[in-house]
């Protein structure tokens, strides 16, 4: 393991540990409103200042990290799993299956998701707890985010199908699901990992955008997405640099995730 990967590993672990220790590090919690100090600057009481209604930003970053670091990868897992199923299988089977899968993913990518998401939100019950709303949000993102990855995976699987080692396995009498699971899927791993890591920041930002449609994480629960929305309309960074903390954390964590990828995964 090289130094950069070691450092990335430490960073990710440290961020995870901090978010898990949120209850001890910030006992007031993410929802407590210090109304006498809205938009307060960074201080000993509030390490990253307070937000518009006086909630401690440090606490919200910690709790938001816990939610985003848990649920964005979960959504990425769902979408990558679906992509592997649709794209990987179609590529492995080839022929009409591959053409059908590509047509289907193209159709899926061309749908106006914004309007569909608005419809989904309109159909959802109103009285759901913030935790359930966040689970629903990331689950929907996971369900909808597979198509682009499926296209990449179908091409990779299609290439693998005609590789020598697959042909040799076939000649040895291996076929069907066993061939796919033993020879094709392990060779798709670098592409799958790459798609998985790429999806995480995409889902975090998508959740932030969905907040504008009312589909994001419900108040008072924080997430990186809702914390990034605070940057809307921020004209001068110099005046309130502490407001950039969620953005910096997002960049650091995502960079660390990227550095954790092996050379093989990067190449994929």
């Amino acid at each position, binding site marked *: 393991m090289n130094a950069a990967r070691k450092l990335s590993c430490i960073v990710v672990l440290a961020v995870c540990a901090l978010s898990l220790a949120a209850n001890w590090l910030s006992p007031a919690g993410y*929802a407590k*409103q210090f*109304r006498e100090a*809205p938009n307060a600057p960074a201080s000993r009481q509030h390490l990253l200042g307070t937000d*518009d*209604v*006086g909630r401690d930003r440090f606490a919200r970053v910690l709790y938001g990290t816990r939610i985003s670091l848990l649920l964005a990868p979960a959504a990425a897992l769902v979408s990558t799993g679906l992509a592997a199923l649709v794209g990987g299988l179609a590529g492995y089977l080839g022929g009409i299956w591959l053409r059908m899968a590509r047509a289907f993913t193209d159709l899926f990518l061309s749908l106006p998701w914004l309007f569909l998401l*608005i419809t989904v*939100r*309109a159909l959802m019950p*109103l*009285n*759901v*707890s*913030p935790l359930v709303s966040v689970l629903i949000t990331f689950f929907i993102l996971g369900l909808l985010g597979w198509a682009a990855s499926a296209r990449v995976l179908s091409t990779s699987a299609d290439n693998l199908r005609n590789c020598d080692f697959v042909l040799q396995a076939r000649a040895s009498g291996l076929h069907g699901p066993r061939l796919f699971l033993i020879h094709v899927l392990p060779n798709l791993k670098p592409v799958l990992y790459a798609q998985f890591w790429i999806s995480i920041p995409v889902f975090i930002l998508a959740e932030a955008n969905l*907040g*504008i*449609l*009312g589909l994001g994480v*419900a*108040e*008072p629960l924080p997430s990186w997405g809702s914390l990034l929305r605070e940057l*809307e*309309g921020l*004209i001068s960074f110099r005046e309130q640099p502490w407001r950039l903390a969620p953005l910096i954390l997002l960049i650091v964590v995502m960079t660390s995730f990227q550095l954790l990828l092996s050379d093989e995964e990067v190449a994929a």
Partner: protein
Amino acid sequence: MNMIGCRKSFRRILCFAIFLIILTSAAAFSQGGGELRFCLRSEPKTFDPLLVDDDSSLSIRYLTGGVLLRVNRHTQALEAELAESWKLSKDGKQITFKLRRGVMFSDGSSFSPEDVAFTIQRLMDPALHSSTGDAFRSGNGAVTTKIVAPDQITVIFPAPIAGLDRLFDQVAIMSAHSPRKEAAVLGPFMVAEYKAGSSVLLRRNPNYWKKDLQGRRLPYLDSIRLDIQSNRDVEMLRFKRGELDLINVIDSDYFDRLAAGSPGLAHDAGASLDSDFMWFNQVASAPIPEYKRVWFRDPNFRRAISQAINRADLSRVVFNGHAQPAVGPVSPANKFWFDDKLKAEPYRPDQALERLQADGFRRQNGTLFDRAGNTVEFSIVTNAGSKPRERMAVMVQEDLGKLGIKVNVVTLDFPSLIERISQKFNYEAAMLGFRNVDLDPNGQMNIWLSSAENHAWNPQQKSPETAWEAEIDRLMRIQASAVDPKKRKESFDRVQEIVSEQTPMIYLVNQNALSAISSAVEGANPGILSPQTFWNAERLTLIPGTRASR
């Protein structure tokens, strides 16, 4: 020095004196001048003054249209404009105007009673679908006009109209004879150029009838450039660069940022007519659990919720102090119609809990339960994208949490929200705002009548479902048909008191009227009524050389 030299010197002195006289006279006559610049936040939908329905077109109509009577945006009193005087008949069906003589349209044609008659007939033409005209429809039958003298005209309505004279503030008089109707105006400015999606240029009307105390013809400005700009960040940036002279309405965040750097440019005119409020769904057929409907229909429950909300905190935290705790349907800024016996509901969580306990609610382990043991939980829907309203909902969530009530805040896109609250009634509580431009309570008939579509908590009732709604219906009809302002005020005061007792709407705050005016603009006196900053545009002047980056 010989005689010739003396003559030469004398000529030189004379020439210099004449030059000085010309220079000073020119300076005196050119006082003002220049181009005022500000933004419209959307494309004007029409330049026809009788079809105006959107904010941008309203601004243009205000600057270009001449009206018979004008509500003074500062004193809120009605003042004579194109009409020298006016008289209302005792039955409230007729109004007679004595018109100002010698007034000319911008195209040079004379203003006469025929123009007033033409405007009224066109305004009331059902085929025109004028929303301005709708306010004048009082009953079956046509609106007629009668020219009673060369400078007098009477407008006759089929039924009495309450507050009739004030409605003429919205009616820009059009020319009966000019071939280019929209181009012939009686206001201080006229439309000179329109670039779709970019700007509207207004030039001074050389025939405008008003003069200042020194006898100089108004307006002072040569032109007004209205840039079409919907992005408020860009608008503020341009104002700070000195490219714009005023911003008519700004929100509290921008206001504070501006005030921090340039305190003289940010103007807070105090509480406006706008209000933010929430209400509970009381529709009998709404798809909500029956036990929740029982809570929402209980005035004690609604009053307790109202008492548990800290309005002072909402004003201070969400609007940085640029809002006032709301009292009721009428803002205290509405000098005549506000019932000054009423006060804003004070923050009393203890009293709210006692009120709920008297109704059988009980608090256990920090959670409130009703008499049947149901957890008290409901959702508040509001429109996504409105930061102040989202913040208010979060604060209400915490306030009610102290009573043990669980509130779920749901932000929805505007069309979905409107569909839920006005068609499907699939919601529990909603939080919205009311942008009020009309001082008269007749503008609120579509809210308070139980049969009205905008009777938010329980619209389109075939007959009033509660005694107090029946009483509000009766009082609103009385005030709408009475001509005597005192009698109207008595009726509407009682409506405000019933609303305060029954709390069908929980009024939260009245936002302040905030605006930004450059130091280059002289004569501005921002008020709370629209248009806040340029209501006296004809008297605004620009100080030369003061436009600079702020």
